[in-house]
């Protein structure tokens, strides 16, 4: 089934806007907060912000939540395309992945700027001492080469094989992201377990597909 140019464009914009909504909502609420805090009065009619009494903590958590969601969304594209037999979906993977990287970057920035205010000593000791921070930073570091090499030019320069090797990092990044969340959650909460479950599920599906492919390839060789 071929998609028309219009279908592709519509879906692209639909995804683009959908994924940017949480970020827009966050900026909107910070605008309300600044307006309220400095008594500017421009936005008073729009009501009070929803960032709680601790907007910094809330912002950091909010960005982390959405970063993980979009990261897993991008990780789910390939298996979804195969299961639902819509291989056109793969064309959107890069965009979703770059958006996930954007959210992860904002998440980290909010920690460095809002939470720690560039207290590098404190940040460094957090990364070294706190396992969930170590894992989170490792995941972010692995994401950087993926984001940088996401352009067509880089695919050409590296060649498909090397490019794929770099992007296999997502198999590590996705579990690290979910574990990062699991380890920082207080008490015996359900949400982090759901994310871990999703990662395990996605890894399982991919493993199953690759086993299937190998069996097919082996069968192909045998008959040849």
């Amino acid at each position, binding site marked *: 089934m071929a998609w028309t140019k219009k279908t592709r464009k519509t879906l692209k914009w639909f995804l683009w806007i959908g994924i940017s909504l949480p970020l827009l909502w966050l900026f909107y609420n910070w605008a309300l907060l600044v307006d309220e805090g400095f008594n500017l009065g421009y936005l008073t009619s729009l009501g009070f912000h929803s960032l709680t009494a601790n907007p910094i903590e809330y912002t950091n958590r909010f960005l982390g939540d959405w970063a993980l969601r979009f990261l897993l969304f991008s990780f789910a594209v390939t298996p979804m395309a195969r299961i639902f037999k819509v291989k056109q979906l793969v064309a959107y993977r890069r965009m979703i992945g770059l958006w996930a990287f954007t959210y992860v970057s904002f998440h980290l920035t909010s920690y460095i700027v809002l939470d720690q205010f560039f207290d590098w000593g*404190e940040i460094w000791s957090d990364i070294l001492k706190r396992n969930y921070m170590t894992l989170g930073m490792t995941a972010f570091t692995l994401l950087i080469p993926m984001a940088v090499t996401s352009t067509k030019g880089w695919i050409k320069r590296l060649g498909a094989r090397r490019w794929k090797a770099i992007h296999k990092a997502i198999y590590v990044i996705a579990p690290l992201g979910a574990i990062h969340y699991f380890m920082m959650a207080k008490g015996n909460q359900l949400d982090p377990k759901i994310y871990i479950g999703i990662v395990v599920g996605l890894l399982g599906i991919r493993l199953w597909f690759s086993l299937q492919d190998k069996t097919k390839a082996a069968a192909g060789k045998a008959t040849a």
Partner: protein
Amino acid sequence: MMLLKNRKSWHIAENQVTPERLYLSRRQIMQGFGLGLGAALAGPLFRAGAAYALPNFGIAKKTNYAGDEELNSYKDITSYNNFYEFGVEKSDPAKYAHALITDPWPVEVTGHAERTGTYSLEDLIDFNALEERIYRLRCVEAWSMVIPWVGVPLAGILKKFEPTSKAKFVRFETLANRAQMPGLRSRVLDWPYREGLRMDEAMHPLAFMAVGLYGKPLLGQNGAPMRLVVPWKYGFKSIKSIVSINFVENQPQTSWEMQNPSWYGFYSNVNPNVSRQRWSQGRERRIGDFFKRKTLMFNGYGDQVASLYAGMDLAKYF
């Protein structure tokens, strides 16, 4: 609040309680000094001042245990809460705690004491001897507030039951009522929520049983109708909506310690030098501030309480 219905004797002039607006005006003076560009810009940013109605309580005595530190607003104190029985989000308690029924409020008193039994709230709290105490509250999540509590010293309540010499610890439990507390459906903790103090900690003059704040009865999200306030310990030790007081011989298990013993200990004194939990405890963000401040040993109450722990290794007994 029903329990206040026929207690007109407490309704006294509002000038007897510290109103929020006095503190707001002081804040504006502080800002005038210009505490650096960042503070000047960010200082007012997170402060949500809210108008507040006449106090419902008569206050016999007022003591400020937070120096010249600015009070947090009534809105902040009643909208940003950890009370997992109502959900794990900070906004959940304010959203759901209105369902909490606090009248009548029977409290079971058991264990090593002469006068055990079931008591009403009025049996435990002398509403004619209420005090206002301004305390810092330091949450283990590295944020803090300054709150004008209303209540009575815990020691006065406990003495009424005449604990015996076998009572070495006192153990408290929060209400666990599924119909009123939607958060109980998920097993974040092993319900009911339980906390405990060593007897000398419980008898310390700073240990407080609050029934109100800002001159008003506690709202559900703050632990109505009565909750502990132990200002030198992390906030989770200050157990809310207490329905059970139990005098025991051995150190009781507490909810967070049961959930994660490598993070949370029985004592859980505020200690900037020991950061076992996922939060670095060296600094804290006062709700309303942009910049963090240094966390003080025993939350700044070391002069009064450090002697309770003389000779103890506080890294071991965290």
